[in-house]
């Protein structure tokens, strides 16, 4: 091999493109047939194509017709968001896809169950704060409480951080369910 040959730098035949637009956080609502594997299809699409899932909630909403509704919170550039919507629509069991963020600010709520060690003074403080946040006590004994709190993600975050110094034990959250404002409904 000659010296000249070695001087040729290795090169790729793929080009690299960087997305430079800023990312936006959007809430998508996806109506699907509630059939085995449908969630795996949706999640698989996100992993296979390198999209983010920040939150995901799924439940059947129409038992007779076997229809579920998935709420996904994702962050991406506007271009990638367009791709996510079209790729979701391409899945065979998908009825419809709505980008709720594009339709104006949607109503978004999540539920958290928050277990707090409630002793002596902190016990009263926890109850007082729970009341202010309209959290309900769903389990109570001499040593601890479980609060149920519903609201926007920020409100739940806030409540949890206030519980920390009072003896937070553990938290479980549903992720948000979202719906658009006004009389319009999603296509089923």
């Amino acid at each position, binding site marked *: 091999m000659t010296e000249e040959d070695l001087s040729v730098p290795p090169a790729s035949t793929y080009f690299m*493109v960087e997305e430079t637009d800023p990312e936006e956080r959007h809430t998508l609502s996806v109506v699907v047939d509630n059939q085995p*594997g449908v969630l*795996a299809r949706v999640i698989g699409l996100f992993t296979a194509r390198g999209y983010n899932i920040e939150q995901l909630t799924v439940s059947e909403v129409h038992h007779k017709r076997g229809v579920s509704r998935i709420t996904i919170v994702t962050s991406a550039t506007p271009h990638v968001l*367009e*791709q996510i919507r079209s790729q979701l629509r391409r899945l065979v069991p998908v009825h419809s896809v709505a980008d709720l963020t594009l339709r104006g600010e949607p109503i978004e709520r999540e539920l958290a169950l928050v277990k707090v060690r409630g002793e002596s003074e902190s016990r009263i403080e926890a109850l007082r704060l729970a009341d202010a946040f309209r959290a309900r006590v769903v389990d109570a004994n001499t040593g601890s409480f479980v609060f149920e709190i519903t609201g926007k993600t920020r409100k739940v975050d806030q409540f949890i951080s206030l519980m920390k110094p009072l003896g937070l034990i553990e938290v479980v959250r549903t992720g948000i369910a979202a719906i658009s404002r006004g009389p319009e409904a999603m296509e089923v």
Partner: protein
Amino acid sequence: MAEDTGAPETEMMTGAEIVLRALKDQGVEHIFGYPGGAVLPIYDELFQQDDLKHILVRHEQGAVHAAEGYARSTGKVGCVLVTSGPGATNTVTGVMDALADSIPVVVITGQVPTTLIGSDAFQECDTVGITRSCSKHNYLVKDVNDIARVIHEAFYVARSGRPGPVVVDIPKDIQFETGAYVPPANVTHGTYKPQTRADAQSIAAAVELLASAKKPIFYTGGGVINSGPRAVAALRELAELTGVPVTSTLMGLGGFPASSEQWLGMLGMHGTFEANLAMHDCDVMVCIGARFDDRITGKLDAFSPNSKKIHIDIDPSSINKNVRVDVPVLGDCGLALEDMIAAWKARGLKLDEAAMKAWWDQIGVWRARDCLAYRNSQDVIMPQYAIQRLYEATKDRDAFICTEVGQHQMWTAQHYHFEKPNRLMTSGGLGTMGYGLPSALGVQAANPGALVIDIAGDASIQMNIQELATARQHGLPVKVFLLNNNYMGMVRQWQELLHGNRLSESYVEAQPDFLELARAYGWHGMRCARPGDLDAAIEEMINTDKPVFLDCQVANLANCFPMIPAGQPHNEMLLGEETEDAGAACA
């Protein structure tokens, strides 16, 4: 006699019978497959009937490629039957290949009995899990009464919208059980209803933009062929009506006749100088059933920088995926082209004649570079020459051409001129070596009596060489035209051009004696090493009424030009040394 209630009586039969009945009702005549434990009930039914012809392959990957060849040469849905576990996993490459090239195929896989699913049973695998991301859709059938509906749905999904492969996994116990058969007419899909007719607004915007062009181009793809004969006819009509130059991707070759004055040849990484320069310099691009793949666009930010783009596609996710377009036209490209023709005529539109003359003059200058020229030899067969001679010998015989993947594939695209759609079967998107031979078998099964040639490379052909036996068993007289250069030619070319000629593992040592190999499989084996003997060898090959393997020994180190090198735009092509003003050319 039973009272006629108007409703047909439900027919009861076993799951295996339902499978065959559903396939027949879907118009399936050939099925490519390989038996095994979990599909034995279906094979038992196959044995007891004569309507469906089963073609026994030697590897399940070959079955899918054969079904793809069948589908691509006919426009029908190809069909595959394999067993569970390894039978299913062996189809994965074929299924992914069909997904990448949008080929309608239904793959039926056996599965262990429902009671054993999840127990790591013998020959169990999670077929629906494994094939979820490489199929357009898939099903696991757990109730015998669902089999008919699922198979009918599978065919509908495979051929509708942007076509693709669908996998249907059927556990063995379900194949034995008795259930109700549902005819196809009683099955409609609840959710999958792709839009086929583009809205009138986008058609109007498309023709208005096209009419404003001074340097227009049609960039066509496999969607034209998938859409069918109406799309092909409409493309020809719109091209004639407007006088716009036409180029195509590898997948779209044959969608527009190569003999037309308006044909620029293939575009992209190994496309012609004139096609790529016209793409780069055009002011209005009409993309018809193509998807702006990276082998087409080259460097994205320098791709056709000054053009307005119209994109006709049935798949909404193809629009604005890689390249932002100005006028998206969502729908079947045949219908969209017909609507564009009607709108063009109704508005009395016309392109600027002077501008079009200048544009064609410019294209003439590019064409004069003769970018596909190569230095021929008296002593050794140049691969380009071999394909040119094959083309000359077969052009009047309406031949079906399959290819493997690599240099020979690109030379075929450059030097074999396709007049009709459905005549080139090649692995475009996935680039699957070993595609050509099994694909040719499927083409031959669908087109008995036709001349079917697999233009092969010596490395690729060995990836599915076992299918030589399938040809022999089923009397499929396909021809293998092997361009044997003892290298993985395209790998070697990239190593030469991009990796300092360090030929890492691309030389194929210990090559088999293909002549003896072909004969061992009962083929007619031939060898040709001198240019002077080539025509006679080709004649003998195409006139022998049995499978023929022609080992054509070609120049070892020939490169495939033109080539758009790494990360370069369309106007920075590497041209072969025989091209006028050789070297990297700038527009």
